[in-house]
């Protein structure tokens, strides 16, 4: 599946390995959360990069401290209307300081891309040829943001406070 990463369609270098299947030790592999829990001791010795598919029911506060050891954390949207992964994403980025790839998988629709990006996702499994185009369009659809998230966008409140400071400086 094509992967949209930082706005560009790229080849997905990560291979998804089913539970019980052989885990290649020479290339980046994505495993399930269940496998990580069951085989943690062995997997910790692995040299090749490891990614994880985290269900949206996983206890994110318990998982968070381990996040840094994964090259990719793939969060899931079983339906676009199931928004648990937005909270998981923000917690991983803002609470646990996760800096690796945060991938949106499942029912990822163009009209949700901006929300996902604001929550901290930087990679999207979005099965359409014009993925890069719709992504650019989605990100440009709004230019003012009311609430602070960890995405670095300047909020309306900050802009207003700066305006206030400028006014005070002018007086």
């Amino acid at each position: 599946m094509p992967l949209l990463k930082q706005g560009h369609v790229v080849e997905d270098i990560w291979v998804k390995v089913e539970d019980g299947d052989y885990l290649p030790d020479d290339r980046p592999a994505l495993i399930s959360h269940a496998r990580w829990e069951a085989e943690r001791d062995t997997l910790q010795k692995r040299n090749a990069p490891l990614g994880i598919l985290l269900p949206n029911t996983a206890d994110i506060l318990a998982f968070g401290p381990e996040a840094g050891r994964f090259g990719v954390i793939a969060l899931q949207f079983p339906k676009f209307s199931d928004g648990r992964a937005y909270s998981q994403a923000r917690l991983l980025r803002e609470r646990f300081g996760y800096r690796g790839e945060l991938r949106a998988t499942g029912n990822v629709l163009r009209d949700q891309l901006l929300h996902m990006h604001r929550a901290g996702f930087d990679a999207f499994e979005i099965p359409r040829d014009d993925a890069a185009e719709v992504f650019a369009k989605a990100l440009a659809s709004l230019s003012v943001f009311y609430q602070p998230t960890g995405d670095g966008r300047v909020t309306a409140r900050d802009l207003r406070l700066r305006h206030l400071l400028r006014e005070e400086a002018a007086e």
Partner: protein
Amino acid sequence: MYQYDQLDQRIVEERVAQFSDQVKRRLSGELSEDEFKPLRLQNGLYLQLHAYMLRVAIPYGTLSSKQLRGLAQIACKYDRGWGHFTTRQNLQFNWIRLEQAPDALADLARVQMHAIQTSGNCIRNTTTDQFAGAAHDEIEDPRVWCEIIRQWSTFHPEFSFLPRKFKIAVTGSPNDRAAVRVHDIGLRMHRNDAGEVGFEVIVGGGLGRTPFIGKTIRDFLPKQDLLSYLEAILRVYNLFGRRDNMFKARIKILVHEIGIEAMREKVEAEFAAIRDSALRLPEETIAQIAAHFAPPPFEALPAGIAPEYAQAFRTDFDFGLWARRNTARHKQPGYAIVTISLKKEGEPPGDASAEQMQAIADIADRYSFGEIRVTHEQNLVLPHVKQADLPAVWRALKAYELATPNVGLASDIIACPGLDYCALANARSIPLAQQIARRFRNWERAHDIGELKIKISGCINACGHHHVGHIGILGVDKAGEEFYQLTLGGSADDSAALGDILGPALNQARTVDAIDTLVETYLQLRRGKERFLDTYRRVGLQPFKEAIYAAA
């Protein structure tokens, strides 16, 4: 009142552009109805029995005269000349065509309005006391906090796909006119022992098919922490709220299932982690928003009753009747709050014609600093009227059939649109409301009965708030026939309570008679100045039950 700056304006305009593109994709067939549905719902567009319905957000029920005129124009241009004010302090247009919806939204944006988050599983329009900024018993103007919540909740990226819809209400008065105990989150402003003003935070209240009175999760929250605390509650709900069953997905079920103590533990832990984040409100930001709600330039008038008002009250019976029911005490000497009843006999509760909206806008400009409020009881309010102007305001309203003197009386009924419009309803609400209103058309009797809140829902979703009606009426379907189940003793104010079921449901004809019988029973039992609710609370269900079912 709040005026958009260029940032607010840009957001609503960008939203219109986005939705126009989505409608274009739908009309061209690129989007199926299934794919389009969540997008249109996020713009307040529902597909109802006969047409599309557009629900317009009226943030915390506050309108300027310019906005009300804008709504009147939209009613004429895109609807059949009517608007319907709802229990969420919003406005619905019932006859919108899909291809015109983007134009209607563009017209709304021109008067700083929108339909954002008026449906869908997101944070909905925050509601408050319709007397905010005018009420004599107010600690602080709750609209400042409603606006802060509005901005925070608009396009919140984390909370746009919650398990279910989410409603927040704020009251700035000890006398709760915003029904904060029956909301997902209720915020009640009060002073702590140190004299500081903050919020009691109430969570997990709600009506619908499983009604609950909300529970206090925090006694006192400092103001600057409001958004951190709300974000903590919403995050816990988003992660832990049930998604396996739509009917168990509201936060009230989560609170009920895990208990308020476990809920508090989770929320407080999350709050502790984000309390000092960018969500903390700087004093300057609070002051910037509060400046929008500075009191209008009131005249300095003597305390006591204005002579012009007293004179008219004595000499004109009809005026006196209206003034007694439809005006309330104002915090500013010499001023009054006027409630405009949208419950004229024979009209659907909450409906106003475009002509009436224009007239109210003109009256507001002349007598109420251009301000209008929408009440959750589906009436309108002129918040700042000089007492001396009351006779003139009454005459002006009367000319447009807007002076029905029934606020708080038996004919001031809350009713959902019901089976006449709504795809979910089991039974009609509006015709029943009209029949009950007709039954209590005698003003002498109606005023003798006094405050009586009758609330009608056409189905279990409880849009008509029947659980908290002094008399609640729920439409049910019995083998294809419309029946109504009655509840007694509900209340949405500071003594919030859910009504008790009276007995088996009745058909429509018997329902109207039964309401009459309940009222007669009350009149026989009441002591002194007791309201229906007071008598009910004293004597209980039994005498009422006997009166209705004993004969059968």
